[in-house]
């Protein structure tokens, strides 16, 4: 008995020694034999790579921005474009030259609109995919874009507008885009649907809106139908300096709001139960994020029409480079989307300037999206 007690005592001491040794080893090494300094260094390299990626995409966006402005039958080189911009800023009151007028008044609003629309739609898409844990989630597939299209169609074909004047179509589109958004929000609050159910409901709404829109187009006169078509297919041709402040404000405020919610989105990725266990009000957070995304998307779509696949593709490409941390993913997806939109606009200007940009984003973005999904190994969105 004494011998057994003695053995048990020895075992206890040995266990304590081993635990103590392990603890001291853990402060210096991880499981792969890395020291603390090495782990910190690797983490810093990882963070630097992410920051470098954001900077590279931003620089590429600026270059593409200049190239895009220069493209067209009245072509200008990258240097001529930036010279015209520089001249304009250096002497604001001067009489404009033709180059300056083309750069500043004709093309700059369109290209800025492409940049802002890509930025906003992709940030909204990234946040939506993270929140719903669904690769198909974006303003396009949740019916928000189709709602906006129906609102615009009502204004153009039947003259039914909430406000009169220049912004009649835009306000109609904005209000109608909020219908599916409010539907999704109400459903989230009262029915607690799964993310997949939200997407499927959005798709159903999208088809209902599309059917109504097609009917209105068929019964309208050819000129009105053509106007609806030009609007719904996604076009940047109506961009002007009057629209830019509004869309800029929407994108900046929406972006700031999503960045503030990025930490919550990261936690929600680990599941509702875990989020609740650390004190996050999941339903309230979901409503806040959905309202932000809806306002962001509706604000953009009401000016540029339906531009599909940018909000789907850009977050997937960005995720390949920066991972799923929403604090980095949201700005990275935004910049990636802005770059893709500028590239798509370049393609439009080179190939067929009369083609709406929404067609190019679908034709190019669709196959890219399919390839990304098929090659994706992880199930993290």
């Amino acid at each position, binding site marked *: 008995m004494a011998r057994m007690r003695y053995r048990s005592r020895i075992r206890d001491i040995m266990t304590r020694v081993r635990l103590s040794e392990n603890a001291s080893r853990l402060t210096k090494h991880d499981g792969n034999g890395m020291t603390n300094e090495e782990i910190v260094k690797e983490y810093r390299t990882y963070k630097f790579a992410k920051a470098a990626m954001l900077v590279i995409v931003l620089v590429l966006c600026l270059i593409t921005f200049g190239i895009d402005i220069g493209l067209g039958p009245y072509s200008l080189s990258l240097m001529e474009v930036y010279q015209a911009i520089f001249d304009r800023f250096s002497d604001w009151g001067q009489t404009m030259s*033709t180059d300056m007028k083309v750069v500043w008044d*004709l093309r700059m609003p369109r290209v800025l609109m492409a940049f802002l629309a890509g930025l906003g739609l992709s940030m909204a898409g990234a946040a939506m995919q993270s929140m719903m844990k669904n690769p198909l989630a974006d303003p396009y597939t949740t019916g928000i874009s189709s709602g906006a299209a129906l609102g615009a169609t009502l204004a153009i074909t039947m003259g039914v507008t909430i406000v009169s004047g220049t912004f009649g179509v835009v306000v109609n589109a904005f209000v109608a885009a909020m219908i599916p958004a409010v539907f999704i929000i109400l459903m989230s609050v009262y029915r607690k649907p799964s993310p997949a159910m939200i997407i499927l409901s959005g798709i159903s709404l999208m088809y209902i809106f599309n059917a109504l829109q097609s009917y209105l187009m068929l019964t309208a006169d050819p000129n009105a139908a*053509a106007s609806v078509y030009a609007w719904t*297919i996604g076009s940047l041709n109506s961009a002007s300096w009057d629209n830019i402040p509004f869309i800029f404000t929407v994108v900046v405020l929406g972006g700031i709001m999503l960045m503030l919610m990025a930490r919550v989105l990261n936690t929600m990725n680990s599941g509702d139960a875990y989020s609740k266990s650390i004190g996050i009000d999941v339903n309230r957070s979901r409503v806040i994020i959905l309202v932000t995304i809806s306002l962001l998307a509706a604000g953009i779509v009401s000016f540029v029409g339906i531009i599909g*696949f940018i909000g789907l593709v850009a977050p997937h490409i960005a995720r390949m480079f920066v991972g799923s941390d929403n604090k980095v993913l949201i700005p990275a997806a935004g910049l990636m989307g802005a770059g893709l939109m500028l590239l798509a606009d370049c393609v439009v200007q080179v190939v067929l300037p009369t083609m709406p940009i929404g*067609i190019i984003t679908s034709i190019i973005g669709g196959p890219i999206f399919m390839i990304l999904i098929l090659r994706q190994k992880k199930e993290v969105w």
Partner: protein
Amino acid sequence: MDPGESKIVIVVFAFILMMGSVTMFIIGSGLLGNIDDPHKSTYTYTFEGMMDGAVCTGDGRTEYTPENVSSHLYTMYFTLRSSAEEKGFKIGLLFDSDDMPSSSLYEYVGETVIGEQVAKDWIHREKGMTYVISVVEHCKVLRITINADDMDVVGDIEG
């Protein structure tokens, strides 16, 4: 549904969305094809005058692309030939949505009768050159006069 199956569903759905956009474009193109935009017309010009002290002749054309709904940008390409040289030029002609030359670039100077049409004359100075364009409806330029130290040419619309 296993991950492989769900991927296929996503891909099929994306394909349907893509085809929807393309179908919409084809239908829309049909609709727009029935509507004539008078701005889209391309015109050709014949030039004559003096270049670098020598008599010259030339030809040119305008090209239009609907870049923006609030303005119309035409690019005029023309080539001038004298016994000594041949030079190619490209100038931009910018019109507002009211089909008149952009008021921030051009100044209205009066009217001219060309053939049987009354055209509005607009003047613009840039980089040492003076342009006078005679315009009728739908941004149609009947005549362009270009003056500079080494150039004095007039281009008239053909036909």
